[in-house]
């Protein structure tokens, strides 16, 4: 039985894990870099240790040092959170070697999930549909042409050395493919000294829908419903919800079963997520398995009632999943907005520094997971995710309205955030009608709408701003501040300038 968990992470997810540790009477050990001396996860854990300098390689990615700290603190398990070492199979292996329980899948299973090509082949055998395209690297232009004609144009020519949208070319016919192949090979050889290309079907207007899975060490597997994560920018999720507006019970059963097959095929253990693309015609294609707790796990917690971190720990302890698929009931609807420290109009550039003041929303159906507190600092060394605002409602519309209001109540002074952007998205008719896709922001010119909304807000607030400026001028010039309330002569003072 796990008694003490080292949390190899920081920020809101470290706090989230600490909360479940406290409920389970498990001691939590936190680690912190120079940047995080005054972070909330240090304050809320049972013990904390300095791990290294601000640069992640020296601290939250410093495998050797983290293992040493776990051993010296007597931690019997490590929770990696998300990001950092959470999908590093070497680290999972290092934990195993040191007899420390890694709260996640085995290193072998994680390795499989991380190898996209290998994983795609396994899915083919497990009859889980993947995006049409090559199952191996295409070594020459003839194979590429064969593949392309098999699946039909348009296709994407992808370099495996790319990532995040780089090194991807859209081609519409044989001629374009020939040209693109030559260019891509040359480019890759120059940059990396080797070339490795893939051909994949180009899919327009897609939705990102994923299933939350849990699998224990005895092979019992359940899915805990889907999450739709189509609202993205630069392939990064912004807003997630459960259920998806295009998944009904029948689809949930069918695609949920595919997800179960997928995770069984890699002999996965613990919690994981199977990601799919969904086309407008209702086709689902497997993309990948995320071998960790996801950022957006709270929406699943809100509609299932489960504590997913507890479930992770229970499975890591060798316990059986204490329910069957049929025991799980999807209750209401949940939405998450990832509050990022960024300036939407500066091309989403990070915004860091002192958070002068913060006021955190609460009330019916609202859950806020955040590491912010008044006078804390947002560091440029780490992820820009500063808070996760979640809402729950009996239905999508109630959840949406609650979220919209909670966004208005979330006050963060001193840094730029994505809150205004989310207000615009949440109140867009297309979002209200569930017309989601990964290109939602571009398709509906959301940034232009946001700009218009901001101008309208300014117009709406101009009278108040003028009143404030004028009255403040008066009070500022006369140097009468808050204390004037106590002064019975204030009336006269004001005019006797």
């Amino acid at each position, binding site marked *: 039985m796990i008694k003490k968990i080292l949390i190899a992470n920081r920020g809101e997810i470290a706090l989230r894990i600490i909360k479940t540790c406290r409920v389970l009477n498990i001691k939590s050990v936190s680690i912190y870099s120079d940047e995080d001396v005054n972070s909330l996860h240090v304050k809320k854990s049972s013990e904390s240790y300095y791990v290294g300098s601000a640069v992640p390689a020296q601290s939250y990615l410093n495998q050797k040092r983290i293992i040493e700290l776990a051993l010296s603190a007597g931690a019997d398990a490590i929770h990696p959170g998300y*990001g950092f070492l959470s999908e590093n199979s070497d680290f999972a292996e290092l934990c195993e070697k040191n007899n420390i329980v890694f709260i996640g899948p085995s290193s072998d299973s994680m390795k499989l999930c991380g190898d996209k090509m290998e994983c795609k082949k396994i899915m083919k055998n497990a009859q889980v549909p993947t995006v049409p395209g090559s199952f191996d690297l295409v070594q020459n232009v003839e194979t590429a042409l064969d593949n392309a004609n098999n699946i039909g144009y348009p296709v994407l020519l992808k370099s495996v050395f790319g990532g995040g949208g780089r090194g991807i070319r859209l081609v519409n016919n044989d001629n374009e493919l020939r040209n693109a192949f030559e260019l891509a090979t040359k480019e890759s050889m120059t940059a990396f000294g080797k070339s490795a290309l893939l051909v994949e079907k180009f899919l327009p207007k897609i939705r990102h829908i994923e299933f939350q899975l849990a699998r224990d060490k005895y092979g019992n597997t359940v899915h805990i419903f889907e999450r739709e994560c189509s609202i993205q920018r630069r392939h990064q999720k912004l807003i997630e919800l459960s259920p998806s507006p295009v998944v009904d019970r029948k689809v949930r059963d069918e695609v949920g079963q595919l997800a179960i097959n997928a995770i069984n095929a890699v002999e996965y253990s613990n919690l994981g997520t199977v990601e799919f693309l969904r086309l407008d015609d209702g086709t689902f294609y497997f993309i990948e398995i995320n071998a960790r707790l996801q950022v957006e796990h709270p929406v699943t917690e809100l509609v299932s009632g489960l504590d997913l971190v507890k479930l992770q720990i229970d499975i890591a302890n060798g316990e059986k999943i204490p329910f069957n698929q049929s025991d799980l009931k999807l209750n209401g609807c949940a939405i998450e907005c990832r509050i990022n*420290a960024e*300036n939407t*109009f*500066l*091309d*989403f*550039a*990070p*915004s*860091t520094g002192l958070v002068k003041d913060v006021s955190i929303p609460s009330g019916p159906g609202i859950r806020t997971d955040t590491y912010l507190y008044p006078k804390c600092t947002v560091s*440029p*060394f*780490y*992820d*820009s995710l500063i808070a996760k605002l979640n809402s729950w409602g009996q239905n999508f519309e109630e959840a949406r309205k609650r979220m919209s209001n909670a966004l*208005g109540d979330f*006050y963060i*002074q001193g840094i730029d955030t994505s809150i205004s952007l989310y207000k615009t998205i949440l109140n867009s008719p297309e979002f209200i009608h569930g017309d989601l896709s990964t290109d939602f922001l571009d398709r509906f010119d959301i940034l232009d709408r946001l*700009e218009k909304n*901001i*101008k309208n*807000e*300014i*117009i709406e*607030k*101009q*009278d*108040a*701003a*003028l*009143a*404030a*400026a*004028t*009255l*403040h*001028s*008066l*009070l*500022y*010039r006369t140097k009468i*501040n*808050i204390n*004037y*309330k106590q002064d019975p002569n*204030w*009336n006269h003072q*004001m*005019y006797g*300038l």
Partner: protein
Amino acid sequence: MESSNVWVMTEYKIKNIDKTGHAKIIKQISTMEYLVNINNNEKIVNILDVSEDYIEFKLDNVYHVARIIERSTSEIKILIDDVSIVLNTNYGLNEIVYKNSGGSITDSQINLISQIPGKVISVKINEKEEIKKGDIVCVLESMKMQVTVKSHKDGLVKKINAKTGSTVAKNDIIAEIE
């Protein structure tokens, strides 16, 4: 009483929407209550709380909070109910040029300034090169994200301060473009 007519009638330029507006305090009704004229409408202001950088009030019974972010003799930057508004006291003499706060950022016509701290991943231009507005000057990494810095104008690259692998602080000059 009329000796301080500075506050009696003020005309403001509302930068963000490029409009003017005016405000006038007509009279003080009671200690915390004023009758004001805002854009030719009479309204009642009840002050609820006030300090040197903060004013909470009701305008015709609707609550507002204004935080004074910056204040100079000619400009007031206010955060009102979480909406940012910049007001210029407009004396009808010098027109203040409206600058779009989106896009690339300059502190003069020459210097390209970094809006964020970060590590320089790559530099995409060379000194003495002619570049266009919007061309990528360099790529910074901050918070696990890559951010492109684009040129704010057409011109000749006079000097590049950013070096690959080095770090830049907020407001550092990345390049000089003439």
